């Protein structure tokens, strides 16, 4: 089956689309065209606005302003289902399949309803097969349960679902992130076949290599705006990287600090770890952090950031390698041991891991083994002393609340993060591991948190900032390393070559230990 093509008009045109969330302008008047019969890559860092734009196209978000033209006609979708029926289907990073249902039943969920009450399993199976044949996709047996399918087959099913409404435009959100390297090649073959059929394939990624491998054109986004659209054959990987990272942010890195020469406090040697799926997530990661140093670990999300944080704070034992604080190598990997060794932390998601929201500010100040033990008198909580401690912390970190008995849920995001930071600093850690410490904070709160991190470093703490926000890394760090596909780059010292940094982040140049192996 081929989709009719109008040579003059673009398949899909985005005209001046803007979208604002509570305090973030996610899209600033974006205009962009997608042609029929092309694979169009959308490249950008985390938070560049790629996903927001695609969610607008797929009917999941409504734009504040702007129009979308599908084959020259203005369209507006009330739901993802409506978008799919009109021919725009999206495959999300996290699959939206029902594990307990069969392949055919899952497909039936995205087909137009035959009846509101009855489900005809045989008809669904026939239709599923017909659809797969029309598109030329290999489908597993229709009555196989999705739970039993390998990831690659799930993805094919998702693509089929997305194409069920005619499939003029197929949007894929980082489709290779969930695949093993062996599964990537068939995916690309499939995408090329869809292109031959005259469909538009939009491919969100931040991997330059994949853009080069499969895309015809590439659009680079940064901070909610389009940097430019290029023919892939006419741009190099390093040009793409430079445009993705942007050269506007001149290294605001702490240039005034000449050289860090404190003693090494944190020494990480050849750490390897696997993620939840058992796929290697960290491979031979080594680094050292000195007292009075802030080491930034930059990189695009999903390249081992979470695993590195988990190993350092003791949530996940590494498969190999050692972590040494001062003279002592960690023997047990659990949070209690890490805290005892003097490794404090600011977790990436304060709501999920940093705070107990229904508990009061004062109770949250106690939420660390190191602090709790100070107020433990044979099991009894020394309430008066804990109360004085909380008041002192609030005073020192200029935390202004109605009362320390306020549930922390009622605080602003900035104040919540200040609670986490104040508590961690009160432990007087020798090493401080932070992940995205200023994410989601307004300017004043972010500045306060940054200043607190610098202050603790000055007092002789070794600070690690793992962040997917490059500006945050550059703003805070003395030196920067890049984590890409589980491997760590050499340390970059200021002045930082932004183009090189971008290439490292995009995985376009080999990291040290990759070159070695």
């Amino acid at each position, binding site marked *: 089956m081929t989709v009719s093509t109008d040579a003059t008009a673009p398949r899909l045109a985005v005209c001046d689309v803007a979208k604002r969330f509570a305090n973030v302008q996610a899209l600033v008047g974006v205009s962009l065209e997608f042609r029929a019969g092309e694979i169009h890559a959308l490249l950008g860092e985390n938070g560049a606005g790629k996903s927001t734009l695609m969610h607008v196209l797929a009917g999941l978000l409504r734009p504040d302003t702007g129009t979308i033209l599908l084959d020259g006609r203005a369209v507006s979708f009330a739901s993802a289902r409506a978008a799919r029926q009109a021919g725009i289907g999206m495959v999300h990073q996290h699959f939206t399949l029902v594990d307990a249902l069969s392949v055919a039943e899952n497909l039936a969920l995205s087909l137009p309803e035959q009846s509101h009450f009855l489900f005809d399993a045989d008809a669904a199976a026939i239709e599923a097969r017909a659809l797969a044949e029309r598109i030329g996709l290999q489908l597993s047996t229709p009555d196989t349960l999705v739970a039993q399918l390998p990831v690659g087959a799930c993805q094919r099913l998702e693509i089929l679902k997305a194409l069920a409404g005619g499939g003029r435009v197929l949007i894929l959100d980082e489709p290779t992130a969930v695949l093993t390297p062996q599964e990537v090649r068939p995916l690309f073959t499939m995408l090329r076949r869809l292109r031959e059929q005259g469909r538009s394939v939009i491919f969100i990624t931040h991997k330059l290599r994949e853009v080069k491998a499969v895309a015809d054109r590439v659009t680079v986004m940064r901070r909610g705006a389009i940097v430019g659209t290029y023919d892939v054959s006419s741009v190099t990987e390093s040009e793409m990287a430079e445009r993705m990272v942007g050269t506007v942010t001149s290294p605001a890195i702490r240039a005034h600090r000449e050289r860090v020469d404190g003693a090494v406090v944190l020494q990480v040697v050849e750490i390897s770890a696997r993620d939840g799926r058992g796929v290697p997530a960290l491979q031979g990661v080594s680094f050292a952090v000195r007292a009075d140093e802030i080491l930034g670990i930059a990189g695009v999300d999903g390249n081992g950031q979470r695993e590195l944080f988990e190993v350092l704070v003791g949530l996940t034992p590494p498969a190999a390698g050692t972590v040494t604080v001062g003279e002592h190598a960690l023997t047990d990997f659990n949070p209690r041991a890490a805290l005892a060794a003097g490794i404090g932390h600011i977790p990436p998601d304060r709501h999920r891991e940093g705070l107990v929201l229904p508990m009061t500010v004062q109770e949250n100040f106690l939420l660390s*083994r190191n602090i709790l033990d100070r*107020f433990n008198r044979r099991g009894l909580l020394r309430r008066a002393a804990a109360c004085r401690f909380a008041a002192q912390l609030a005073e020192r970190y200029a935390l202004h609340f109605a009362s320390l008995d306020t549930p922390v849920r009622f605080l602003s995001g900035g104040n919540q993060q200040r609670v986490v930071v104040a508590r961690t600093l009160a432990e007087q850690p020798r090493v401080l591991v932070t992940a995205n410490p200023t994410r989601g904070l307004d300017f004043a709160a972010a500045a306060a948190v940054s200043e607190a991190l610098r202050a603790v470093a000055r007092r002789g703490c070794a600070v690690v900032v793992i962040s997917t926000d490059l500006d945050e890394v550059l703003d805070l760090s003395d030196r920067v390393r890049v984590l890409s596909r589980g491997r760590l780059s050499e340390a970059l010292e200021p002045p930082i070559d932004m183009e090189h940094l971008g290439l490292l982040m995009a995985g376009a140049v080999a990291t040290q230990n990759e070159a070695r192996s």
Partner: protein
Amino acid sequence: MLNHVVARVLPSLLALAGAVIVSAVIIAASGSNPVVAFGALLGGAFGSLDSLSDVGVKSCPLLLAGLAIAVSFQAGVWNIGAEGQLLMGALAMAALGTYGARLPAWLDLASNLAVAAAVGAAWAGIAAQLKLRRNVNEVISTIMLNFIALGLISYLVQGPLMETGGRYPQTDALLPGLWMPRLAPYRIHLGLVIALLAAVAVHVLLYRMVPGYEMRAAGLNAAAARLAGIDVERRVLMALMLSGALAGLAGGIEVSAVTHRLYERFSPGWGFTAIAVGLLGRLSPAGVVVAAIFFGALDAGSNAMQRVAGVSSVLVAVIQATVILFLVALEHRRWLPGSPHSDGESQV
């Protein structure tokens, strides 16, 4: 501060009001006068010293089992097995109660009560081990353990533990030395004092002690507690076993103070009503005391209501159930401040 107290109590009061209105409509629809019926209910519960004492007797097992619910739910462990743990505690008391007299009577009673609590804890401990070692959801395992406890008692009272002479499927009566002291001539007994002391102890544990703080933190946000270096698994085990101990104590006291022996259908479902008591009391020990007395009063007054107003005593069950439905429906309210569950954490 006052705001937060109001925010905690308000849902319970609203649920009560809702339940009163609904049951008034039902009473009126069945052709009786709601005012007369509620008056009889109140009079039956609080009208005389005798009836007051009855309220205390009925509240006692609900209070202890309600505390069992509060402890486990606050730690994020959904113990639905208070009924089974209570029955096992009762079994221990009944089984031990025909021996004894080796020690002074009060020491015998105290040690038997301790054994009842320990047996309840052990019964809950099975569910805890299944959860920690095999990742079995405690809701399922505690419910199943209820059935096993029921079956076990049914077998024992018809077989090995059947009374001498073997006329009825019940155990022998406890030796009189093991009977819980009463405030004669009323039925009210020392067990209520033990239950109230237990409420104080649970309050101290949860709000004045480090293990209790850790249990609450683990219950409200296990991921944050774990990262803070709290041994979440240990607190889960502790909460579930303490919960079982309180329920077991409830069963032991009931045998010692009221029935003096064990038989099938010994419990009218205290372990389940306790969930309602715990929720109505907002899982706080003080709240559980109030809720247990309220449920006990409904129970004690129901006969008077049936006698005087001709409204079936079953209506009390309707009131209890309606309270819980309202309470659960109010859990996800947007229009009340400070819902403890408004952040998508543990839900009931």
